[in-house]
């Protein structure tokens, strides 16, 4: 298979943008990615676009040029951006395109995500009962995790505080004000043990990643970032995940674990080789669990790691260096691509105030969401 390199990235800041449409944001993210690579829209031979609030992301071509390229629209909940990356990378790997684009865009109203339960094969009574709430699943999962592995609520606050702190260093972040652990702990309890400031917010934004055949990457950039692996998994029998009415007594690990193992194997590296990581932190507890699910520590080690600041930008395990979902919010279609944007920014050494020191070479991105879908992308310089 042909090797794939990222030659340009673009990010329309996540946040609230008034009347600006998701398509306008998507087009700007694409223009930025093209400019980053010194490429033009007409060079793009294939695209994959992800969104939830937009039915046809491919309509962005009307704002950029109707070149007639194949354009797959993808939706995979929180794994949408990673799925777009995989689709675009695959188009290059199999020889369908030399240059391919992954883009994501969304514009969500304020408040938690909502949709009819039947769209995710959930019964009406589940929503009638008030159970069709993703955040309550996150509360249950981290509450059990804290009980099983001795994680304190203070550690969840430390994870959130790190997100806001990193966001304050990121000019493109949505939340740019640091917040103390006590402020986070004292905010309203939404789903025990998770308080309001431990959750990310659905918002608006777009991101784009431009890729090309690795052997042509130097025509566009001196520092191509290679796509070492992309792996997508759904839940297996035994996993207790979002949107379930029941779970078996015999437990299986989360889909993230399966995606992570496969991604390490495909890339031929291990977690100890990763220099900078982006982990799905829909809530602070998710980041805590995902550290272990992706092999970066043992279950329960997080209590000490957060207390020591190990996940900070200048720590041994820099995580969600751009503030993650906590500080950027989640335009679903773009969120996974924001992770890739940040990794590329870090690996190219152009992250400014939030730059990870020590010449980082390997980046790792993980997304997770309903109804138990996870994806991992590993990049290297």
């Amino acid at each position: 298979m042909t090797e794939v390199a990222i030659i340009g990235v673009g990010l329309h800041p996540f946040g609230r943008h008034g009347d600006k449409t998701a398509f306008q944001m998507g087009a700007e993210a694409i223009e930025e990615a093209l400019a980053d690579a010194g490429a033009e829209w007409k060079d793009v031979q294939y695209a994959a676009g992800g969104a939830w609030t937009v039915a046809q992301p491919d309509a962005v071509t009307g704002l950029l040029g109707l070149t007639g390229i194949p354009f797959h629209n993808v939706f995979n909940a929180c794994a949408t951006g990673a799925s777009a990356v995989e689709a675009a990378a695959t188009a290059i790997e199999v020889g369908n395109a030399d240059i391919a684009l992954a883009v994501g865009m969304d514009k969500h109203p304020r408040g938690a995500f909502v949709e009819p339960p039947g769209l995710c094969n959930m019964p009406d009574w589940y929503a009638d009962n008030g159970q069709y709430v993703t955040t309550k699943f996150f509360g249950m999962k981290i509450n059990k995790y804290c009980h099983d592995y001795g994680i304190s609520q203070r550690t969840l606050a430390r994870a959130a505080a790190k997100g806001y702190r990193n966001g304050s260093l990121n000019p493109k972040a949505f939340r740019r004000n640091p917040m103390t652990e006590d402020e986070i702990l004292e905010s309203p309890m939404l789903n025990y043990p998770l308080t309001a400031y431990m959750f990310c917010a659905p918002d608006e934004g777009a991101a784009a990643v431009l890729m090309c055949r690795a052997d042509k990457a130097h025509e566009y950039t001196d520092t191509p970032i290679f796509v070492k692996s992309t792996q997508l998994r759904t839940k297996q029998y035994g996993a207790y995940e979002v949107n379930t009415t029941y779970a078996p007594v015999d437990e299986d690990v989360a889909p993230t674990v399966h995606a992570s193992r496969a991604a390490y194997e495909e890339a031929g590296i291990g977690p100890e080789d990763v220099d900078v990581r982006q982990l799905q932190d829909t809530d602070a507890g998710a980041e805590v669990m995902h550290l272990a699910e992706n092999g970066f520590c043992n279950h329960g080690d997080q209590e000490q790691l957060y207390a020591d600041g190990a996940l900070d930008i200048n720590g041994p395990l820099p995580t969600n260096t751009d503030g993650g979902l906590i500080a950027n919010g989640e335009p679903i279609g773009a969120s996974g691509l924001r992770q890739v944007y940040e990794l590329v920014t870090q690996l190219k050494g152009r992250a400014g105030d939030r730059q990870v020191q020590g010449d980082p070479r390997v980046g790792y991105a993980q997304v997770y969401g309903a109804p138990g879908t996870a994806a991992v992308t590993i990049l290297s310089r």
Partner: protein
Amino acid sequence: MQKPIAEIFTWPSESPQLIGTKCDDCGAVTFPAQSRCARCSSPKMTELLLPTRGTIIAWTTQGFPPKPGFQGDATGKNFQPFGVGLVQLGDVVRVESRLSESDPAKLDFGQEVELRVVPFFTDENGDEIMTFEFAPVGA
């Protein structure tokens, strides 16, 4: 009149039970009933009435009104936080359910709970809709 929220429990039987299915081939259990096994894909599923007592495996509280779809008081005005738990019924299956208790200080892992069917809301026809929840044993 009173009506069940869905055909997922045996109410108005005297001691209501949740209705699941068990796979004839591998023994895996689902709730609610479904026609194919989620573990081995077998189409041979037989109805199984689930145990009514269990223990709390995981729990949280719902501290804000869920979005439209929720049939409790979603306006926020009279919204009462409620508990949600994953309850293990014997060694048969774990079921996600509303809990009668919503005070974190009164909820615990391994806590014994039992099924009950309770009035939940009144629909547009004036019928009282019954749903299931788990309550601490003896509560």
